[in-house]
């Protein structure tokens, strides 16, 4: 196998590649700015300079030259080389700052140049704390600056597009954002304008940076030049905790991270998954934070005199039990949803079928033309495939209307049937309607009983994307009944670890009074002489995988280690269902 020697250590490699990613993949550090593993390599920042040498080949003897100790003679390139653009070759010798004074000097000098016109505004810059320029200046930069003159001023607070704000003074012209629009989103909206110390990225005259993926440029910008319009100045990065999750705004199952402070999701960023979304996510998916924070149903609600009023959990359970006892279970319509997880749908169906109700069905939410062949899908729900694989009948809007007309009791999980215009107030009039939901909406308004359930940010549960890959979320927000301190799967930020209940950044007001579907139904079960007892999504999934063929062999550990698991195809499933 070919080998490469980095700072006197020998490594072998089997796939050819560049020096920089090899160094980073092997746990060593090398500063860089412009390189990005999924973009082309312009080698323009010059921060990754290293010394590189290769063994000398003697054509006369047709062998490598050796010195008196029998070691191969290495000839170094006269100038430092950029590790990001340098292909590895057999016998190559690389010296980074670890072993080369020349490289250390180059890293310092490059940083001094980059910082000549860079504003020293880290204390008010959103990027501070997750800024490669800041980190690398600390680690490899000069102690101070010899530049004592007025810095070049450039446009600030430029609203490049509806979602992205540019501070041109902070830009180091790495062109990552430009390359993103050329190579990934292919809108070609950005280009570097002007030249010399005055240049910065911009759209064409008067054009908006309205790329459906524009916010990815904010993620990959190695400085605070590009910031997200609706996250600016909301939080310092070290105040938030970061939790892996799954996008719930369409069927792609884009892997995301939720950034939470005081139990509010403040932003979503993409999480690398080469099988699904690589490093990217659509702008629209970042809007999900609103669903998690705003307009949540907190505490059960019951309709009295046409008004929904808060009620106790005990009353909610008792009400459902009474409804079931008062009706023929054959007349109960049980509606699952692609907007809820596999676990929720499974338990929901299991509970009601055990009472004699018919199997749960759902109404897929597909908008033709909404997809773009990349990370947006026609399918609007995150778990349509999951419902199919659970064997739920997929209604069309019309068959749903018919089923609804026949029912006297309607129990709906998560689906906003009124908002989606699957049903209106008249269709529901005269029926007993129970809604299990996360957010107040037109559907919850029409219900007689509203049961608040946890959202994807509050429980660990799994979703099957359009390609049949099952992936799961982690709890990121505490509810009234969960605690970061005791649920060891929940991540903690500095404020969570070191803050106290009495600090002004910690409140209880953002905790929603809601329960996971499985927990609520497990508590309700004994009242209706049922045995059902699940405490966690993990337990539910174990039950799913042992009772539904499509999910056989799937568990949370497997999903976690393999970045999701591809289930057997729906075609084969439908035949056996």
């Amino acid at each position, binding site marked *: 196998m070919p080998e490469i020697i980095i700072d006197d250590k020998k490594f072998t490699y089997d796939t050819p590649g560049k020096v920089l990613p090899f160094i980073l993949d092997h746990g060593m550090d090398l500063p860089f700015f412009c390189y990005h593993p999924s973009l082309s390599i312009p080698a323009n920042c010059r921060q990754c300079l290293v010394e590189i040498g290769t063994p000398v080949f003697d054509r006369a003897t047709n062998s490598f030259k050796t010195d008196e100790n029998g070691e191969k003679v290495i000839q170094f390139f006269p100038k430092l080389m950029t590790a990001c653009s340098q292909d590895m070759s057999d016998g190559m010798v690389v010296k980074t700052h670890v072993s080369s004074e020349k490289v250390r000097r180059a890293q310092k000098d490059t940083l001094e140049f980059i910082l000549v016109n860079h504003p020293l505004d880290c204390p008010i810059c959103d990027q501070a704390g997750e800024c490669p320029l800041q980190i690398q200046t600390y680690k490899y930069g000069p102690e101070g600056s010899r530049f004592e003159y007025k810095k070049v001023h450039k446009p600030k607070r430029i609203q490049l597009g509806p979602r992205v704000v540019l501070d041109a003074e902070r830009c180091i012209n790495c062109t990552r954002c430009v390359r993103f*629009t050329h190579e990934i989103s292919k809108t070609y*909206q950005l*280009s*570097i*304008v002007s030249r010399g110390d005055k*240049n910065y990225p*911009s759209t*064409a*005259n008067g*054009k908006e940076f309205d790329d459906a993926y524009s916010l990815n440029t904010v993620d990959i910008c190695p400085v605070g030049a590009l910031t997200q319009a609706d996250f600016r100045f909301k939080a310092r990065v070290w105040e938030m905790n970061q939790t892996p999750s799954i996008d719930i705004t369409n069927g792609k199952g884009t892997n995301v991270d939720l950034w939470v402070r005081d139990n509010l999701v403040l932003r979503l960023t993409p999480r690398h998954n080469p099988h699904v979304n690589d490093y990217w996510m659509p702008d629209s998916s970042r809007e999900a934070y609103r669903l998690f924070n705003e307009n949540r149903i907190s505490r059960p609600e019951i309709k009295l005199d046409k008004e929904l009023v808060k009620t106790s959990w005990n009353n909610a359970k008792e009400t459902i039990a009474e409804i079931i006892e008062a009706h023929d279970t054959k007349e109960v319509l049980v509606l699952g949803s692609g907007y809820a997880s596999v676990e929720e749908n499974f338990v929901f169906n299991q509970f009601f079928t055990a009472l004699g109700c018919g199997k749960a069905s759902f109404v897929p939410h597909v908008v033709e033309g909404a997809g773009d062949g990349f990370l947006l899908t026609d399918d609007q729900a995150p778990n349509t495939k999951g419902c199919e694989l659970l064997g739920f009948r997929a209604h069309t809007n019309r068959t749903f209307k018919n089923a609804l007309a026949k029912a006297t009791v309607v129990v709906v999980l998560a689906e906003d049937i009124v908002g989606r215009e699957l049903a209106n107030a008249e269709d529901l009039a005269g029926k007993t309607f129970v809604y299990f939901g996360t957010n107040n909406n037109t559907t919850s308004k029409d219900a007689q009983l509203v049961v608040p359930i946890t959202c994807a940010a509050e429980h660990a549960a799994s979703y099957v994307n359009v390609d049949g890959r099952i992936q799961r979320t982690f709890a990121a927000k505490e509810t009234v009944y969960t605690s970061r301190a005791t649920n060891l799967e929940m991540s903690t930020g500095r404020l969570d670890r070191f803050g106290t209940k009495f600090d002004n950044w910690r409140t209880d007001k953002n905790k929603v009074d809601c329960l996971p579907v499985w927990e609520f139904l497990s508590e309700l079960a004994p009242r209706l002489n049922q045995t059902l007892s699940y405490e966690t999504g993990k337990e539910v999934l174990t039950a799913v995988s042992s009772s539904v063929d499509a999910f056989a062999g799937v568990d949370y550990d497997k999903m976690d280690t393999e970045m999701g698991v591809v289930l057997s195809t729906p075609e084969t499933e439908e035949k056996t269902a």
Partner: protein
Amino acid sequence: MQINKIMSYTFDKEDLKQIDAIKAKYPTVQSATMPVLWYAQDKFGHVNAEVQHLVATTLDIPESHVHGVATFYTQYYKKEMGKYVLDVCTCFSCQVCGGYDMLHYIEDKLGIKAGETTPDGKFSIQEAECLGACGYAPMLQVTNDVYVNHLTKEKIDSMIDGLKEDKLPEYEEILPPQLISKD
């Protein structure tokens, strides 16, 4: 003479033929950006936002790219300019040889500042960086074309009088000192 304000910018049949000929010289259309911008500037006198848009749509390349190229080079005029653009060099060599004196003389003479255009649309003045003629400092360039070297006030007077009658200054041949015959 007033320059005609062109209200909408289009390329006619002949222009498109020329542009096709330019395109044919390069392996990719993108490479034709610079010569086509030149072509457009020759036709319209400048490459403002609308002209950049026209070039981009004509070549069917991203407008941001055309904008990036146009803003990179100071020789492309991003706004409407006077008929004659005087690029007065104030870089190192010209500066020590009186470049700023020459610039200020022209400014006073035309009654405008660098970066401005006379109300009759005849002259614009720009402050330029080194134009590679340091040996003949101070100097200026007329509309990306003729260099006027070894500037003096008299030379400027006669140049401007000439330009008012649309007479461009002559190209000068300046030999290196060792070749200038002493007799």
